């Protein structure tokens, strides 16, 4: 079976349209980030969260009013699909107290529908800021590592364009999180540690497709005249199109399974990785390689690539 056999798309000629599309995507995300902001989870915000599961269907409003009447202030949301609710409130060092408060109130006021507190998380403000910093450090360290590695294996122009593409992917996903955050009850899209894990996975994987394209360009560009670059870039991208799509496709397939089956705790992560890989595949064809092409064209330099062995 084959998809995309012998394609001949002129990616380089239409790159400006792709640039425009990317810019719109990024600007929309940025605007939403500024206006609406992000939904931070307790990992980064600090606070306490209680997941309550009921035996039978329960009404959010009723539970909310019961908890309000008991003097536990906080927000209550549907959690996942299965009669579970997530109650979040400010950080309390003694979660035992919070648990008994919630439990007593529900036992007294909602009869005939037993509940169980299946999870309690409490994150103090100092921990939250620690987590935030280590997330930022991890993200930048990995971008730097990728820049260095691709710089050594290829050339700094290729590496920079690859890292720009990663930025593009992560910022787009971040923007999507801001735009779609809180819109779906089955997927709250809160920023927490797992989303940082998703971003690092996207960063590591986004470059995978890019490297596949780069590798082919490297193989074919040796000793060619700069005037032939446009043809070589186009041919390389067309030749690798099928493998780019299929490698991403298998990952998308398994992440989609994760999104469907792995439950609400993983859903935000799966969503981030799914969209990230989708955008990453697009960007390796429409952002990374065209950027290298433009860079070479504007600086009028020829490529001196390392490590290109032709066997």
């Amino acid at each position, binding site marked *: *079976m*084959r998809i995309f056999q012998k394609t001949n798309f002129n990616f380089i000629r239409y790159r400006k349209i792709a640039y425009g599309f990317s810019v719109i995507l990024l600007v929309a995300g940025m605007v939403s980030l500024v206006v609406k902001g992000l939904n931070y989870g307790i990992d980064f915000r600090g606070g306490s969260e209680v*997941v309550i*599961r009921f035996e039978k269907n329960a009404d959010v409003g009723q539970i909310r009013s019961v908890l309000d009447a008991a003097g536990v202030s906080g927000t209550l949301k549907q959690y996942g699909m299965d009669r579970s609710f997530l109650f979040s409130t400010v950080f309390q*060092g*003694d*979660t*035992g107290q919070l648990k008994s408060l919630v439990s007593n109130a529900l036992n007294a006021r909602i009869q005939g529908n037993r509940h169980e507190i299946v*999870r*309690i*998380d*409490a*994150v*103090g403000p*100092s*921990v939250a*800021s620690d*987590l935030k910093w*280590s*997330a930022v450090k*991890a993200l930048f*360290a*990995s971008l730097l*590592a*990728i820049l260095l*590695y*691709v710089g050594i294996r290829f050339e700094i122009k290729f590496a920079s364009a690859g890292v720009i593409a990663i930025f593009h992917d992560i910022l787009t996903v971040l923007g999507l999180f801001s735009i779609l955050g809180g819109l779906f009850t089955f997927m709250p899209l809160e920023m927490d*540690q*797992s989303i*940082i*894990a998703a971003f*690092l*996975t996207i*960063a*590591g*994987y986004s470059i*995978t497709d890019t*490297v*596949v394209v780069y*590798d082919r360009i490297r*193989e074919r560009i040796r000793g060619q005249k700069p005037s032939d670059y446009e043809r070589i870039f186009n041919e390389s991208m067309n030749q690798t199109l099928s*493998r780019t799509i*299929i*490698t991403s496709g*298998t*990952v998308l*397939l*398994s*992440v989609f*399974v*994760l999104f*469907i*089956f*792995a*439950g609400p*705790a*993983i859903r935000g*992560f799966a969503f981030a990785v799914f969209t990230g890989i989708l955008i990453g595949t697009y960007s390796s064809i429409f952002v990374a390689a065209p950027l290298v092409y433009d860079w070479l064209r504007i600086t009028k330099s020829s490529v001196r690539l390392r490590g290109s*062995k032709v*066997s």
Partner: protein
Amino acid sequence: MKNKRFNLLLIAVVTLVALWSLWPTWSDYSLSKQLDSFASSQDSLKYAMSHREEIDNARKKSLKLGLDLKGGMHLVMEVDQVDLFEQKAWNKDGKFAAIMQNVRAKATQSDARVIDIISAEFKSENIRLSRYFYDIRNSDQEIVTKLEKESEEALTRAKEIIRNRIDQYGVAEPVITTQGSRKIIIELPGVSDETRVRNLLKGTAKLEFRLLSEPEVTIRTLDRINSYLAQNSQSSAAAGGALPVSDSSAAASASLPPGGAPPLAPVSKQSSAKPLYDVISVSPYGTAFTAERSKEYVVSLLHRSDVQALLPQDSELLLAAKPEEGKVGEKLYAIYLVKKTPELTGGVITEAKATFGSQSVQPEVMMSMNSEGTSKWARITGANIGKRIAIVLDGAVYSAPVVQSKIPNGNSVINGIGSLEEAKDLEIVLKAGALPAPVRIIEERTVGPSLGADYIRAGMLSLTWSFCAVSIFMLVYYKKAGIAADIALVLNILIVLSVLAGFNASLSLPGIAGIVLTIGMAVDANVLIYERIREELAEGKSVITAVTQGYDRAFSSILDSHVTTLSAAFLLYTYGIGPIQGFAVTLMIGTSASLFTAIVVTREIFHLLLAKNLMSDKSFG
């Protein structure tokens, strides 16, 4: 040819090691299934007894499940370094207290190390650290180094003490580690009574024996505070402010009808002639009490520095740990005026035992002391016959018995304990020793066992479906070559699980997510190779040449993509905490394993097939 044989051997060894490492997991699983299958619990117990060694062995070496899958508690505790450094200082004066208060405020807000905050504060006040710490001849730098060492030691000691407490409480496979300079991470799988564990861990367990002041002194002191407060409230009332004062005294509330709802908190009032005696009542014998509902207010009152200035030299007012029943069932807390300097501290305690008291059903904890403590205790009790000595644990008075006679054998008793369970916990913390400084819980994550079971089910579903989806896709898209990729994929999953089991790492929900993601990524290398082989075939090369060149030429992009994924996963592991590390670990193992399975294993399969003439140019779809 030699090289080929080596590769085959390598594959065989890796497969066998993986299976061997996963064998205990399998036998643990089948044994527990067997145990469940018995009709009566008696049969299953008998089976468990006869196969005990086998079961224990399997369980010890099997793949561990993470806290989120098994249910349990994850706690992060922080050692109060400000308190620790305060303890280390000597000739503390008002200036020192003011600086340390600043330090405490700053430490809660910033991430900077406490020791750096302290040295910066002292520098800005132009005071040398040696005025309060260690030797006067030490330079600031020397003192900072010494204090750093102190805090390191305190952290290790706190960790050991917490480990002792948990071991004595009895939790299977606790994991206790330190992080940074002041954090202790505690993982307790399968804990059911979280509140009890939390209380067990939280207390400093600082035991002190302190002399009680004479009743007259206590009454005089309380009188002094009362008149000071009255003056103060009058002047503040004149200024328009109002002190929060209870509207009814403890004595008055004791005469309330039992069913009457007492006010929840002290209600503010314009002014009162007896602000203190509104919330405290004094018995004719000189014992002071406060009612439970005004306890918080009294504590805050006693902590005020202007109130503390009114106390006699080297004294402080402490509340009882447990309330006593008032005349009409009102809960009353006794207030004691005790010496600040303890006569003896808990460091001398060698043994503690929770029992029921001889005359009553009240539980109590008996303690015995080492030789140094015994002789000191004999001297102290001998010199204070007829006086009262308070037994203070973590700043609360448990009891204040009158010394009847000299105690020569180093025995003492804590009573006034609510339940036997609590007495047992006291026994544990006293045996384990006191923490060098207070600790507090700054992060806690508790997962109930039912949610853990849900997570396992969800994780297994995701694993199965993603494996099916990806392997079927490979078969459909690449035909015969897809079989090789699928075999490689199975081996890959086996390797990930066996490495986790072999290194005693545990599998968490994020870890399962990592494996699912690995399934999608592991076949990528094969896709790159197969696509390349298709290209070579399209150029009209023979199958053998196409396979060889396909592997050779795809290698550089496979390596590059794996290195980038690995480095991202590695950094995630380095900077990530807890569950995220589990994800990073499985992703790292899976990515590295796929380099081996996708390149070496599939290649050997093709070699075998080619040698038997089972491959044609149609075999790659």
